[in-house]
């Protein structure tokens, strides 16, 4: 999986949930969407990338990925 592609996907999802004023709810929305729609190797890759640097990921996307890892 190309990391750039996953970053773009995560940011696009975040852009939708960003309309939610409560950022905790928004991050939960992004997390839930990724959990329900992304195949495990994609999730694994974005988690690894986020832990490595997370450059290019929006703040909301980073917060959501952090929630996945718990």
């Amino acid at each position, binding site marked *: *999986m*190309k990391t750039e*592609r996953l970053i*773009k*996907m995560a940011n*696009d*999802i975040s*852009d*939708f949930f*960003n*309309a*939610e004023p409560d950022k905790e709810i928004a991050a939960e929305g992004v997390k839930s*969407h990724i959990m*329900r*729609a*992304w*195949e*495990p*190797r*994609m999730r694994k890759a974005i988690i690894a990338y986020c832990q490595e640097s997370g450059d290019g990921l929006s703040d909301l996307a980073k917060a959501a990925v952090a929630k996945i890892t718990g």
Partner: protein
Amino acid sequence: MSINKEQDFGTPASTATANVTLEIDGFKVTAPVGTSIMRAAASIGIDIPKLCATDSIEPFGSCRLCLVQIEGGRGMPASCTTPVAEGLKVTTQNPRLAEVRRGVMELYISDHPLDCLTCSANGDCELQDMSGAVGLREVRYHPVATHLNAVKDESNPYFSFDPSKCIVCSRCVRACEETQGTFALTIDGRGFDSKVAPSQNQPFMDSECVSCGACVQACPTATLMEKSVIDNGQPEHAIITTCAYCGVGCSFRAEMKGEQVIRMVPNKDGKANHGHSCVKGRFAFGYATHKDRITKPMIRASIKDAWKEVSWEEAINHAAAELKRIQTQYGKDAIGGITSSRCTNEETYLVQKLIRAGFGNNNVDTCARVCHSPTGYGLKQTFGESSGTQDFDSVMEADVIMVIGANPTDGHPVFGSQMKKRLRQGAKLIVVDPREIDLVKKSPHVKADHHLKLRPSTNVALINALGHVIVTEKLTDEAFVSARCDVASFNKWKTFIADPRHAPEATEAVTGVPAADIRAAARLYASANNGAIYYGLGVTEHSQGSTMVIGIANLAMATGNLGRIGVGVNPLRGQNNVQGSCDMGSFPHEFPGYRHVSDPETHQLFENAWQAPLSMEPGLRIPNMFEAALDSSFMGLYVEGEDIAQSDPDIKHVHAALRAMECVIVQDIFLNETAKFAHVFLPGSSFLEKDGTFTNAERRISPVRKVMRPLAGYQDWEVTQMLSNAMGYAMNYSHPSEIMAEIAGLTPSFAGVSYEKIDALGSVQWPCNDEALEGTPIMHTQEFMRDNGKGLFMLTDYVATHERITPMFPLILTTGRILSQYNVGAQTRRTANNAWHQEDRLEIHPHDAEDRGVNNDDWVGIKSRAGETVLRALITDRVQPGVVYTTFHFPESGANVITTDNSDWATNCPEYKVTAVQVTKVSQSSQWQQDYEAFSGQQLELLEQGLNG
């Protein structure tokens, strides 16, 4: 079997609920108010002679053959135009009526060729039948002038127009007006000179005729006749089946001679089409027996090798062995499959079952990924169910119709005709589209009240502006919202949408639509008694496709336009079984019935039923499969009935992914573009060769019935079953009805569906279960399908697409389809429909053309960030300045060479509708096109080598 002619009641049924009782030939009959005497008589088996009347169009009263006498009444009124009344006593047969009818017939026959024995309508001619019925025995007139030498018009590839046989009954003219709504035909001249004339006395092909066949269907003689009947004679039996083209799902009578389809005639009882058709379903079925059909399984080690024809057993065993090898080498998740909206419900169900239970993963996806996946997501979130809310007939009660990003007269022509009928009755129309579709002002007697000609990619800004006006001008239906919706979410949305940034004046700069137009359209929609929204791929195929679907749902809920006839949110599905393929669990994260794979209860249900361990993790979507192929973690693919190598975006990327895979198995009726990258070819069966069901855009499950034996020996579901058994996962169905029984047993919304019920009712709309034994035409009438029964409002901020115009790419390319061709064109390109559309063209506005020195028919290069292709230019003001448009029906056009990998945030539905491009005049095809021609030619040679042993 027999031809079982449909009964013609002479005039349309009345919709009145009050009845009257009268007496016809001494028999009592009760009929709804407004029924004609002719129809009332037919309902008790009394056939009154007729020629100009048929029950698909309004009565005309011109032929004077259907005269009757009414006790106490004067003269002999026409029974077709005389309505029933309480206590009438009608006589349909007596010597005086017989004499008048014989006289009328004598006049008709005096100017009609007496070539019945060699006439193509022999055996199916109402004029012949009426001559017999009235007992015509002689013709005393010897006219000095006749029409017997009138010249035939053979210009239409599918039907012939022989005016020498015309009785000028006007049935064709009225069918073109009332049924189709094109008004291409007229009666030209007066008296003896009267004649049926297409357009301004032009040949049919030069007229506005759209070749829907309504005139042919209505003609009582051989004047308008299918060429297939002229060539082959009358059919001898008929089987009811369902069209395999668009999402309207028209019911047809396949009229047969042995195993040869003589003609496809729209079924009068078809609940989606009511006896109407379009040029594709009616005439473009010849692809099913085209010489390009491949009917023998083939294998090869590499795509550089010649194909080798092998037995079914060898092909299936080889495919299974390869898939198993790949799993052993690369892991269980390294293979997957793709189902198709062109396949039946039973076939798609079986493919996803094979993948989930046989492959042991959820790597299954469907072509709905690239069309209506945002519909599934958006409507599931807001309404609780991934489907449209209405039946097609609901449009006849709509007062305001909003069409967003859809072109019904081209994409869904039979429904388009129904919508035009309602618009001619006076319903108001709002069109939201960057391009001027026919409904805007090119359809006779139809004109949009508002055309919101927005810039591509700005849908969400526009829907928000409409919502803003509705909220700030207090046009919301508070009673509906408080009773039916999640009020907290509504209040949150209200605050969000009332923000000035969503005001039409603020969004005007983004959308390009004047604020006043948006305000007027919003008021019109919100103030309608019944406001209905219809939308298509112009909504979904955007990076904010799902957001826009949610925005539409918000708007409908806020105005109370849900839960009854005449309103609703209506996605017009592209292909015949988009709804069904999604219903059947073709998405990687959902089991049949849209239940998530991680839901423990559902997971357990399917594990128990399928007797196999199932993954609780979502699988790969189609674009993810390509990505995974390119990093060598996805190496085997089973594709049934789908052509990803032509239809998917950024095609060079797709081709690279297909080349990277070690085993691509294609099951199709032709060596399609994807098959050129395949290692195993399993010949498929057309819709005429198999049993099953399709589910159309209104959730209507309709029968698909085998009318001929499969050319390759097996129906598609049987092939999947063989592959599954070879993979080691046992399947033992003996008929698709057993598969549907399994679906019904596992899917609550299908619990009441069975082949017996479909046969008895003709079709059935899901949900069909104990609560709705005969199905559900209108959804959400009492409550929404969400857990709490309440509709959910969601926030829909506008986010600009990644695809930006720049000085290097200053134009926006958007794509669409045309009436005569279908999707990737694999079917329609192999029919005479090419007479209407032989190539994809680039529509460009005159200003943009002039800036570039481009003239009509010039070759132009279209270059995007993804690639470049070359098409011929068509200069038209249908597109706005700054926007260019093309169709994608021909592989050599390479429309998807230029589309990008941008996609919907929720579903990864590609953003086909928005690509920044530059257009320049060129003199030769693009490098990609030259490479494609070489590759495609090489693949056809490798096929030829295989076929020649």
